[in-house]
């Protein structure tokens, strides 16, 4: 299994990352070496192994439906790159 430059460019687009042609080359190589490393698992016989849906064998972790104090709005907006009195501001997204 080998990733192409187009695959990486597509993932970068979906993640809204701007990547230069040089970086695309570099990331494709790096990602492929990660994929190859993980691909070693393919050598194992897994026919009788149940698919794993979670890394830890714990089930049914819940909290009670109890309401607590919200963050003060000022605190919620504190780290926003762009904001006004009451909201986060982002470049307009056309519907």
């Amino acid at each position, binding site marked *: 299994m080998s990733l192409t430059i187009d695959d990486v460019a597509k993932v970068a687009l*979906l993640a809204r990352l701007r990547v230069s042609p040089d970086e695309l080359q570099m990331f494709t190589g790096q990602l492929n070496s990660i994929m190859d490393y993980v691909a070693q698992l393919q050598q194992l016989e897994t026919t009788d192994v149940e698919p794993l849906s979670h890394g830890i064998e714990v089930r049914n972790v*819940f909290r009670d439906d109890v309401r607590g104090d919200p963050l003060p709005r000022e605190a919620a907006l504190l780290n926003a790159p762009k904001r006004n009195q009451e909201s*986060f501001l982002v470049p307009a997204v056309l*519907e």
Partner: protein
Amino acid sequence: MDYDIIIGLEIHVQLQTESKMFSWCGTEFGLPPNTQTDPVSLGLPGTLPVMNRKAFELALKTAVALHAEIAPFTKWDRKNYYYPDLPKNYQISQYDLPFSHGGWIAIPRRKDGGGGGRCGLTRVHLEEDTGKLMHAAGGLSEVDLNRAGIPLLEIVTDPDIRSPADARGCLEELRLTLRYLGVSDCEMQEGSLRCDANVNLHIHRDGDTIATPIVEIKNLNSFRAVEKALIYEIERQYKKWRDDGLTIKDAAKTTRGWSDAEEVTKPQREKETASDYRYFPEPDLVPVVADLAWLARIRESIGELPAARRDRFESEYGLSPYDANVLVEQGQDVADYYDDVARATGQYKLASNWIQQDVLRTIKEKKMSVAEFPVAPAALADLINRVERGELNTNQGREILGRMIETGDPAEIIIEMGGYRMVSDRDQIAAAVDAAVAANPQAIDELKRGKKKPEAVKGFLRGQVMKQTGGKANPALVGELLEAKLAESLQ
């Protein structure tokens, strides 16, 4: 025009919890922007979601009520997309192992005899709601994350619906069921119930069936909009097919938005590569195993649902399907009120009439709930019994109920105070009957010559007798004495 209409709905329902699905802040509608957040809803680094048990149980309750099969094992997945309505850049949702499978919604029978049957469910899963974006000046959008993280049920139906009226009916039945269950308030205006509709046509021509391209309609903000948008869209698709002949094989599914003001659907920009969500299992939440004991408790918590209640109102009280439906579709509190009045009087049909005509009209006019209606079921039952026993006629009963609503007093007191005793004095009524007949010789003449229907003439004369007695005459006695008088006059 020979075609079948194929409609499927995609419905989102906010579940009624105190706190959000994965964190502690509240879920109230209509608060100022960004005053209902916490570090988890903001997607701040280092935070971890913890599942709200109530949210999961409400979802289970809904799925059981919709006849779905509950999965013994379910897990959560990340739906990855980059959009500022969720700051984590993914939505916690369910992909390959949702908590339920199958199920159906009853399609209500329509007045014209259409409808009926079932609309199957493709899937029901639990996810988190997203924030809201509003356009602002200067090429910017405002992001309000109050809604982000509210538990949301996604319900996708099979394409089993065959008309815009049935689409609306199906959605109304779903809302009624969810309200009976108490899992959601289902206010379309407030967005706690949202619906998109997928529609296309199967056109029959020369023994062939041609399917038109599927259109998804968004922006449906009311039940009326669902029906109207579908009616519009069906006509548009048919005309378009006649113009360009494009079928489902030639064109991909498109999205159109309904404009309430213009009553048209308009093309919407597609989210680019929207389908590539790269789902993967959510590592921050562990799976859920729903055992039989838990499911049994959920089942026990479900009361009588609308469909069962309609059936019972017909079988236990002998109501017509129409009457049973009117009482049930008003909501649980009205149906409970009817149950109480019907059982207290034993006069099932009368109780239904009084509630449909007088009680419902009053609560609608005064914009109150049944809980606020000042006449308790036992007090209305007492009034109905007095009318039934002939102590009062129907008009007097109506007046007294009006006074009971105003004053909150029981019928007994209003009758004593207001001189409402019905006149049951035979001689007095016989005199009034004699006078009415004597004063209206033309009526007897019409009856003799068969110019008018006997019932019409009798009705007129009964009215005259009532007028003379100030509306207080015992209607049964008036009827009896009038019959006797007319029989005598016609000899």
